[in-house]
């Protein structure tokens, strides 16, 4: 049997020495490529260095910019609840980087109740672009980083050929679109991108003992932890542990480098993770302190993902739309993911993320997430599940293309585009803020005639609550996050603007806070939901102004004295403030500089001559 002129891929081959599926071998392990004869042959083009890849990392990055750039330039996520909160917190860093006491929410709260890195980046860029554009630029950079991180991650798991497909796939993920454009989850997406990068460098260190990889992994994982608490607790482990398992599995295989001890490889990686956890825990000590000392919080119905089997709309919102056409790949993932030795851990991580992403449909999320269980957490796990699935989905795509050629290419592209388009369409029909209104009237009122010396409250503003807060100098007794007034803490209600969603606990919390309006200097209440009017009318407020054709009304109480300091001001020690203000950003900048300055050397791929493409028939030979 002679050597074929071109390479063929087919998982149904009968040649035992070319173990199926072929993606399990990296290009370096067989520099001649995988040579198969099949009844349904497809030529694999290997024109030279890296030309077996569909796209280079640069092209993947450009595609990410091309797809997400216009949407972010249109500032699509500008009014998502998460993005407004991020911009509000970033604005404080922009004004006072090391002054961590923010007097605008909860009558005063510490910025350390939220992981700082993405807010600090936005704050830094806001001096150039302005706060909203800075947010969009940061988010775009994160999307690009994520695509590159997935590219690199997939290369570790399933090889050079799958990496660009996985990277491109990450750009079109429905789960990413929902997080970016509907939830404004910049910290979670940024943390995930950095964690994936960190995990892939961890492989380099654990398996190859590369010191540069160690430095990059440590810096990236610390930066990831400083972005988002969920990523710090769960995300890093979900991506890093399978990668360490892979490094251990590869440690005895000389095709992946010098032979090493399996246990030592794993332990080395675990030590790096432990060091990262200790360092990031030290940097974020004030944050973790606030998390562990925070009171029990009730979740509003829109903050929980119910049982997908019993609530069709929830299933659509939290599972079907985020997965998109990737749902069709689930049978393949289950069949191939665990069967192949190298992808076993990857599949298990995907499986765990998939189950937790089902939220209340299974009891797992409740036990695993504990106090972190909410809709965004569930969404985040689904996001991670889709990311973890991408290397395997990329293999499926290669196999489909190998079998069905152009038809498969077209269908895969259509599936990818529809998967990305579905969440955007969903957002159009289910906007997070219905009937948006102008908040400048409100900000102008609060900023004039010494009105800012009193505190204010908004009711029914939804995601525009943070928009008002970021535009005015006045302080509110409400807020988003772990902070709570003592009166609201008793009922576990963290966000008074949405009090009615918490049921009687929410309204009782609102009553309790309004009862102490004089102590808090709470004079002004802006009402956008008439549901709240009876309570504030009976409590002694009177309507004084109306905006937006009466849709927003201002209520005032006359006997309220100007707000005074609630004496809850907490000043962190200088060392903690310095660590908080400097180290996260330093880690990120150093990691990015190192990655740019020391790019990975591409694997050398043996080139082989191919007959001209186009009209030349592909020579096929039946496998024997």
């Amino acid at each position: 049997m002679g050597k074929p002129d071109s390479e063929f891929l087919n998982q149904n081959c009968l040649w035992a020495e070319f173990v199926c599926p072929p993606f399990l071998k990296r290009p370096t392990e067989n520099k001649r490529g995988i040579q198969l004869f099949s009844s349904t042959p497809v030529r694999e083009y290997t024109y030279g260095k890296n030309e077996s890849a569909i796209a280079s990392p640069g092209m993947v990055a450009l595609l990410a910019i091309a797809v997400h750039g216009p949407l972010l330039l249109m500032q699509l996520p500008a009014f998502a609840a998460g993005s407004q909160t991020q911009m509000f917190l970033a604005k404080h860093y922009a004004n006072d980087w090391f002054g961590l006491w923010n007097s605008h929410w909860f009558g005063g709260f510490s910025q350390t109740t939220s992981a700082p890195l993405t807010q600090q980046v936005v704050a830094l860029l806001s001096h150039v672009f302005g706060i909203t554009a800075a947010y969009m630029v940061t988010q775009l950079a994160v999307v690009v980083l994520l695509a590159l991180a997935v590219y690199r991650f997939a290369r570790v798991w399933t090889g050079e050929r799958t990496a660009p497909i996985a990277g491109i796939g990450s750009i079109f993920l429905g789960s990413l679109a929902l997080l970016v454009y509907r939830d404004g989850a910049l910290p979670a997406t940024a943390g995930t991108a950095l964690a994936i990068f960190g995990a892939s460098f961890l492989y380099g260190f654990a398996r190859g003992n590369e010191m540069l990889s160690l430095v990059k992994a440590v810096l990236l994982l610390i930066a990831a932890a400083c972005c988002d608490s969920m990523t710090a607790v769960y995300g890093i482990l979900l991506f890093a542990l399978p990668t360490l398992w892979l490094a251990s599995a590869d440690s005895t295989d000389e095709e992946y480098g010098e032979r090493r001890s399996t246990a030592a490889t794993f332990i080395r990686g675990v030590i790096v993770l432990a060091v990262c956890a200790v360092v990031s825990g030290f940097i974020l000590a004030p944050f973790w302190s606030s998390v562990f000392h925070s009171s029990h919080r009730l979740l509003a119905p829109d903050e929980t993902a119910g049982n997908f089997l019993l609530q069709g709309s929830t299933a659509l919102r939290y599972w079907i739309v985020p997965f998109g056409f990737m749902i069709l790949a689930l049978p393949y993932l289950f069949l191939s993911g665990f069967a192949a030795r190298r992808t076993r851990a990857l599949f298990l991580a995907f499986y765990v993320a998939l189950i937790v992403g089902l939220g209340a449909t299974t009891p797992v999320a409740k036990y695993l997430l504990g106090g972190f269980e909410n809709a965004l957490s569930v969404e985040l796990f689904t996001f991670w599940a889709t990311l973890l699935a991408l290397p395997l989905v990329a293999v499926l795509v290669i196999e489909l293309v190998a079998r069905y050629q152009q038809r498969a290419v077209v269908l895969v592209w259509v599936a990818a585009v529809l998967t990305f388009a579905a969440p955007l369409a969903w957002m159009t029909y289910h906007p997070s803020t219905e009937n948006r209104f102008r908040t400048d009237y409100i900000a102008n009122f609060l900023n004039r005639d010494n009105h800012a010396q009193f505190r204010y409250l908004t009711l029914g503003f939804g995601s525009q609550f943070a928009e008002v807060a970021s535009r005015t100098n006045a302080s509110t007794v409400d807020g988003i996050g772990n902070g709570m007034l003592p009166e609201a803490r008793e009922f576990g209600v963290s966000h008074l603007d949405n009090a009615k969603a918490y049921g009687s606990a929410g309204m009782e919390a609102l009553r309790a806070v309004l009862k102490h309006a004089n102590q808090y200097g709470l004079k002004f209440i802006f009402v956008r939901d008439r549901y709240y009017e009876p309570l504030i009318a009976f409590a002694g407020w009177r309507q004084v102004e109306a905006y937006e054709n009466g849709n927003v009304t201002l209520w005032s109480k006359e006997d309220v004295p100007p707000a005074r300091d609630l004496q809850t001001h907490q000043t962190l020690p200088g060392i903690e403030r310095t660590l908080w203000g400097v180290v996260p950003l330093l880690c990120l900048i150093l990691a990015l500089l190192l990655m740019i300055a020391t790019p990975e050397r591409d694997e050398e791929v043996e080139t082989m001559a191919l007959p001209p493409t186009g009209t030349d028939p592909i020579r096929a030979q039946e496998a024997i």
Partner: protein
Amino acid sequence: MKTSAAIAFTVILIILIGLGTAPHAESHTKSGTAEAAVHAFFDHVKAHDWDDAYAMVNPGDGVSKESFIRDIAGNNGSLKTISSIQKVDTKTLNDSGSEANVRADLQWSTAVGAVHETRDFKLTNSGGDWKLDWSAPQQVPTAADAKPVQTNYLRWDIVQSGASSNEWGVANAEPPRTRIISMNAVDYNGSVVIMGEVVNEDTVPGFVTINADLIGQDGNSLAQESSFDKISHTLLPKEVSPFRIDFPGRKLAEVKSVRISPTNLLVPASADPLVGVFDQHIEKDATGKAVLRGQLTNQSGLVVNIPHVLATFYDKSGKVIWVSDGYLDQALKPNQQVPFAVDLRDDLANQVQNYRVTVNYYNSSRS
């Protein structure tokens, strides 16, 4: 290996989904008892599933589906229209197999806070399905049934002297003269309760809020609270309103004095709507608690969306010994009577010599 692993993971996933879903399914299938039927009924009410809720009732005379929905979901902007059932606790009073009486303690989440209600339901078992007997609401229509009536009541408006004063109230005008005419302080349920009455002695309406400051034995302030919603804030000339201020977690023994600071403001007001109170009497409710019951009649032309009843109880010396309040979940249409009931402390029921009911209100059309 390949297929068996996939099957194993799929089976585990299905089992987990089953474990997550079974408790919900269980709660939906729990039926067969009268109590379960009441729970199921309120599940439908909570979901605003009026068809299924109506299917679970035996409608009495004059109860159509529309009137049932009006009864259970409220109408005319009443408190019930902005309420949702939060919690249902049931207790079977008697069950003969074909008929049962179930007492339901209902907790509603309303726009003015949590509201508790105790209702007794009679259920009939028809073909294995329990149905709630539903009678028409106890609303007593009068001759001019539910028609807006043009009235000629007094109205006080404030003429602004200049465009600069465009906020509510007139800060630069002399506030109306108000006076606290009685005051009492008691310990109750681990709280210090300050109560009394305030009168507007002026000839113009005023907006009154009472703030109180407990002064400790060392002369320092212990706590500050306000009358909040336990007062009728808008007082017409010569009108009297009770007030009550609660200081949770305080004891009278640690209080040296109380500093009361009423705040008055001149406001525009109208004597319309006027709500009459009839048939007031103290009695025991189904649970044996003392309550003050009566009928409210809207004697004017505007619908009162949310009436708020404030009851002042006096002892034989004329001292205010208790102030209690309650929100009505029905709207008051013109010339229509609606029953009300407010709680009275059982230990004070024997001491009450006299009582007076004041009706405060919220109108959704009022700005």
